[in-house]
């Protein structure tokens, strides 16, 4: 999935850098109740990307973490240097579709993907970032695509980070309804802007041998007539950064 992001950006003549010091934004720690650990990872993130012109992440929830929660984490630390660094960095952090549509002004990125696809708006993308039509605009511009509507699209897939294991039964009940909606849509691919939600959805589709795969939006955008991106046939996500 990371490779797909690089391919799309380079196709659009963006110079891509990958600071190797980066690890994790700290979202899992923060959302599970481990604020001090999340604070240290936030500091690391801010230092790692201090000199980057723009920062892009193909994960709406990670961007929501940085933009939505780093300011409070910084404030809690009481460190004015960190508070200033966060305030300086966050306007330069973009979710992939925000970067493509708002910053680069592109909806057609030259992709070709001759498959029936349905789009699941993830909760953080939908409600925290307000991605709205951006992902759909990008998908509609893909040549060969058959984009079909997902019933009950705005409902959570049940991932929720550690919720998926702490409340596995409830998580799976939510996931089952999401999978049913995906199957009802008739799509062969379910796409989204968050790898974590796709891991949840894709994990169930694979377990159920549903014949439908989960793919990150970036992988669809990276596909072209010359080159079909998208990883293994059973699932399109899972590569860690």
């Amino acid at each position: 999935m990371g490779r797909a992001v690089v391919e799309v950006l380079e196709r659009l003549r963006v110079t891509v850098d990958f600071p190797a010091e980066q690890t994790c934004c700290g979202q899992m720690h923060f959302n599970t109740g481990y604020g001090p650990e999340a604070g240290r990872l936030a500091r690391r993130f801010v230092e790692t990307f201090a000199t980057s012109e723009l920062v892009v992440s193909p994960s709406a929830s990670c961007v929501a973490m940085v933009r939505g929660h780093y300011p409070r984490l910084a404030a809690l630390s009481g460190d004015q240097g960190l508070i200033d660094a966060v305030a300086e960095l966050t306007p330069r952090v973009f979710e992939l579709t925000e970067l493509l549509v708002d910053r680069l002004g592109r909806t057609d990125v030259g992709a070709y993907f001759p498959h029936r696809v349905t789009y699941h708006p993830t909760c953080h993308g939908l409600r925290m970032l307000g991605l709205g039509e951006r992902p759909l605009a990008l998908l509609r511009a893909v040549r060969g695509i058959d984009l079909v509507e997902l019933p009950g699209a705005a409902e959570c897939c049940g991932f929720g980070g550690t919720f998926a294991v702490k409340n596995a039964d409830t998580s799976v009940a939510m996931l089952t309804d999401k999978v049913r909606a995906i199957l009802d849509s008739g799509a062969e691919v379910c796409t989204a802007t968050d790898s974590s939600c796709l891991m949840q959805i894709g994990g169930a589709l694979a377990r159920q041998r549903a014949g439908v795969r989960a793919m990150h939006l970036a992988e669809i955008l990276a596909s072209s007539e010359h080159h079909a991106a998208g990883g293994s046939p059973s699932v399109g996500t899972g590569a860690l950064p």
Partner: protein
Amino acid sequence: MSHDGERPPRSPRPPRPPRPPLAPFPPAARLALADTQLRANLRHATHTIREKRDAAVAEVADWQELREAGRAIKERVLRHLDTYLLELEAAVTGAGGTVHWARDGDECNRIVADLVRAHGADEVVKAKSLTTEETGLNAALARHDIRALETDLAELIIQLAGETPSHILVPAIHKNRAEVRELFLRSLPQAPADLSDDPRALAEVARLHLRERFLEAGIGISGANFAVAETGTVAVVESEGNARMCTTLPDVLITVMGIEKLIPTWEDLEVYLQLLPRSATAERMNPYTSLWTGVHPGDGPREFHLVLIDNGRTSVLADDVGRQALRCIRCSACLNVCPVYERTGGHAYGSTYPGPIGAILTPMLVGVRNAPTLPYASSLCGACYEACPVKINIPEVLVHLRQQVVSAEGPRTSEALAMRLLAVVFGHRRLYERAQRIGRLLQAPLARRGMIRARLPGPLAGWTDARDLPAVASRSFREWWGRRA
């Protein structure tokens, strides 16, 4: 809370007995999820009200401004709660009512029981009051041989079934009409043998049962949706008219109200009387809005007692992130849109207040140590925040309370150890890269075509029981990038 000098000095607070922790959410949810009738009832009810609410809200062009006003007014109340409470007390007293102050549920129940016994009554009629549910008033009254009859149709159903409410506004949401019919046939002598499950027929039986009691009862007990500090007016909004009966027919009216239900002025009601019905029942206006100010000779009750109860609310107020939960107007919109509530129902939360608002309010009212699983009973999807008419950022408070749970449970739990270890790994690039390689080695016997299908140990089994897990890629992005450069 400040007190004026004229009130008699109070005895020091007696030490409270340790509160038993609530039953944990995950196993209760597991049981509820397996109840197919419950799932069908809840799904139908929540989806119906969701669609209606969306339509009712869409009609109001300035809905977002109304929400902001609803937030701001309550925020002001909370900042000056001491002043407004004293203003309310003076206004109610001036209008011929009596104000009582209750520190906790026990004190509240004692005040109410004493009032009922002082009038020599052995039965009271109650309009739906979640606050008295919170204090366990009915059981407390029963210990004094006082019967409390719930008169809200759904509350009556719950009382007859010997259950507790599973929804703030629709306490019997977990029951369908066929179940209600059977219950009425079993427990109400007024029910004809050929009772159908038509809602109208069911309501008629309840009406016959309740009407006699309303006319006989000497004491009514109600909750309150709002109290206007400047006028001393108490407001109850409802659909059925039972609260109107409870608050007007008996000679004595006792209203139990949480101290956060205040609004400063009469004019402020206009904001909440628009926000509440549309959010709660998707109505433009609720059928009955009862407003009363003290007592009036020849009209309504001859005695009015207002019991103002803290019961943990001031400790919520002391939490700078959590205090926004006190803005809640008990509309239930957050329950109706919640994907967790929709599937588990209210009983799984094990508290008077279920759903997203219960998951934040309950731990703060009873202490996070007594409800440590509730802040985790959410996927943080944010639908509740979006729906909340007073803009309570429920996900923010959930995460805030999770920090408190982690602090309370200490650094030695296996989860805390694992999280600290992960934080160390994420804190060092070399460790992180090494962990990826180790993961690849460890998963080798389990991974097939990029996926792990076998049951993983410990909490990860919660994942692999129902889903495959993507394996660490044979070549990570980072390795691909490194070789490309």
